[in-house]
């Protein structure tokens, strides 16, 4: 039972990392807190479902198209709306919140509610690991999560675009003098964030159903992880995912399922009291928080 819980806790933590990664990328680079994140997450899943069941495309192809479309929508939203309120953090929050609300509630209005909205698992198999049944999809979550984290690290450290990303994140004006177009980098950061949300949703959602309320939950989970870890710090996000992921799974097994959300709330409040900038939140610590 104990080791089984540990296995599931690891899987839960990795899926939390997956969920929070895109939000963190967008915020860390362009400073846009993308409150439409949950809408991207659910939107991608619904797109994938539509491609798969209405247009009868092959699964892999529909996943790829869904991810690319979401990435495009992210860029489009930045160019049409966010670029006009760039730099006014709270207007950005309200604008993205409004967009996310409109997208999610539109799906609800169009009648995308019910248990038939599911995505198939990639490979239908399961294993015994440490006395617990683990299906193939959960292993895919861990593999893809690890691959994305490594990929992002390599991307931001060894490609010129990635270095430009970090340059903008560190000091936008200095980066501008080096000829980096901060508006385009910000566009890319929002669209990459949306793309990561889409990847996370197509990997995680086969385990459950696609529901609109999940969109709000995902946003909240991503926010909780990012706040605990320290916004804009990938290391912090991973550590926070493991802290919250383990805490959730262990309360789930040993206390009661109902208490899992409360554990995240408690973790959030305790971290805020002890260290307001989050576990690893070094970046711009002084400027943005006191």
């Amino acid at each position, binding site marked *: 039972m104990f080791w089984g819980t540990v296995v599931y806790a690891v899987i839960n933590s990795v899926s939390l990392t997956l969920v929070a990664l895109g939000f963190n990328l967008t915020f860390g680079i362009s400073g846009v807190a993308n409150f439409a994140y949950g809408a991207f997450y659910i939107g991608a899943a619904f797109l994938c479902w539509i491609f798969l069941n209405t247009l009868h495309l092959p699964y892999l192809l529909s996943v790829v198209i869904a991810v690319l479309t979401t990435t495009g929508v992210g860029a489009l939203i930045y160019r049409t709306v966010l670029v006009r309120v760039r730099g006014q*953090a709270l207007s950005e*929050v*309200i604008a993205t*919140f*409004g967009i996310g609300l409109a997208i999610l509630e*539109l799906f609800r209005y169009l009648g995308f509610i019910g248990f038939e909205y599911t995505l198939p698992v990639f490979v239908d198999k399961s294993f015994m690991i440490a006395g617990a049944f683990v299906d193939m999809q959960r292993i895919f979550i861990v593999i893809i999560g690890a691959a994305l984290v490594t990929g992002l690290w390599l991307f931001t450290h060894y490609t010129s675009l990635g270095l430009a990303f970090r340059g903008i994140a560190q000091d936008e004006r200095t980066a501008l003098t080096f000829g980096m177009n901060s508006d385009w980098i910000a566009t890319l950061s929002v669209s990459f964030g949306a793309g990561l949300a889409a990847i996370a949703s197509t990997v995680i959602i086969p385990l459950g159903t696609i529901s609109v309320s999940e969109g709000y939950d995902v946003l909240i989970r991503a926010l909780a992880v990012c706040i605990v870890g320290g916004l804009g710090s990938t290391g912090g996000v991973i550590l926070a995912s493991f802290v919250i992921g383990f805490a959730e799974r262990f309360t789930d097994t040993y206390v009661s399922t109902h208490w899992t959300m409360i554990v995240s709330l408690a973790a959030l409040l305790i971290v805020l009291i002890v260290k307001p900038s989050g576990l690893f939140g070094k970046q711009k610590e002084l400027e*943005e928080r006191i």
Partner: protein
Amino acid sequence: MKKRKERIDRGIKARSGDIFTVCSWREMTYLAFPRLLPIVGCLLLPLILSGYWQKVLLSVAVFALLAISWDILAQSSMVSLGQALFFGMGAYVAGVFNHYFGWSPFVTIPLATVLGGAFCTLLLLPVLRLRGIYFAMVTLIIPLMLVRVIEASKIFGGTEGISGLSPLPSAWVEVYVAVAALLAALFGFRRMMDSDYGLVLKGINDNDRSVMNAGINIYWYKVQALFISSAIGAFAGALMTHVYMFVGMPVFALDYSILPIAAAVVGGPGTLAGATLGAFILVPLSELLRGIGGLRIVFYGLFLVIFIVALPEGLFHYIQRKYFQFERLVEVEK
């Protein structure tokens, strides 16, 4: 020939800015009209409106109170995305005292205003050190998580809530209590924000470090602003509890967070009057749009985006400018 737009104060605005305004009825009317319009309107509307629209007016007043509470917080540098926390806390405090102790609504509503405000302030105390969007993020999360706490611990009726609470004596009392509270909050807190005390709060928003430099403890001021704002929200919640005679998990719903923000953004943040104006536009509009069901919330979302991008100052500032100033095109000097 290039032209530019020039704005000049109207003559009557300049004339009525002084004590001599009492010499002329016209100028006194000019000054008094914008103030008397909401007062007279709010007091007469319940008499004109029929049963159903009276209820709409009640919810307009409640959402306007929530929007005012949002605006006071926003003016003191705390932008909240979770007015539902204040609303729900007030609703639960009133409901619990009424249900378990059997106290009358006239005791529970003031009690819930104070206690609910205090609870919210205590809950948000650790978050006060956060600024800007960090504060916004946490306030978005807290009410949604509190719902889970109630669901999990099954306190106060759990998922089913508490029903059968005692109502207010009549529909007239309900609507006039709401309207009176709205007018008191609107004019009282507008005055407060113009006083020296309000100036400190606005200063915290503009540049908190320079306020600290002046030897003022900004956290103490933020606690006070938070208490004022959450007490207003808690009052709205407590009133609604007794109107619905029910309190349950829906009081923490996202609606109570979004509509006040939408009202304040549409009406124009920073003046309290704008927030009220926004509520008077959006709530009846949403009643009219009730036929299209869930699409309403889509429209709120789009309203938020359109107003924040196209008219960030909001309707109230726009109207105010037209009232005080006229515009004309003049040639651009070489």
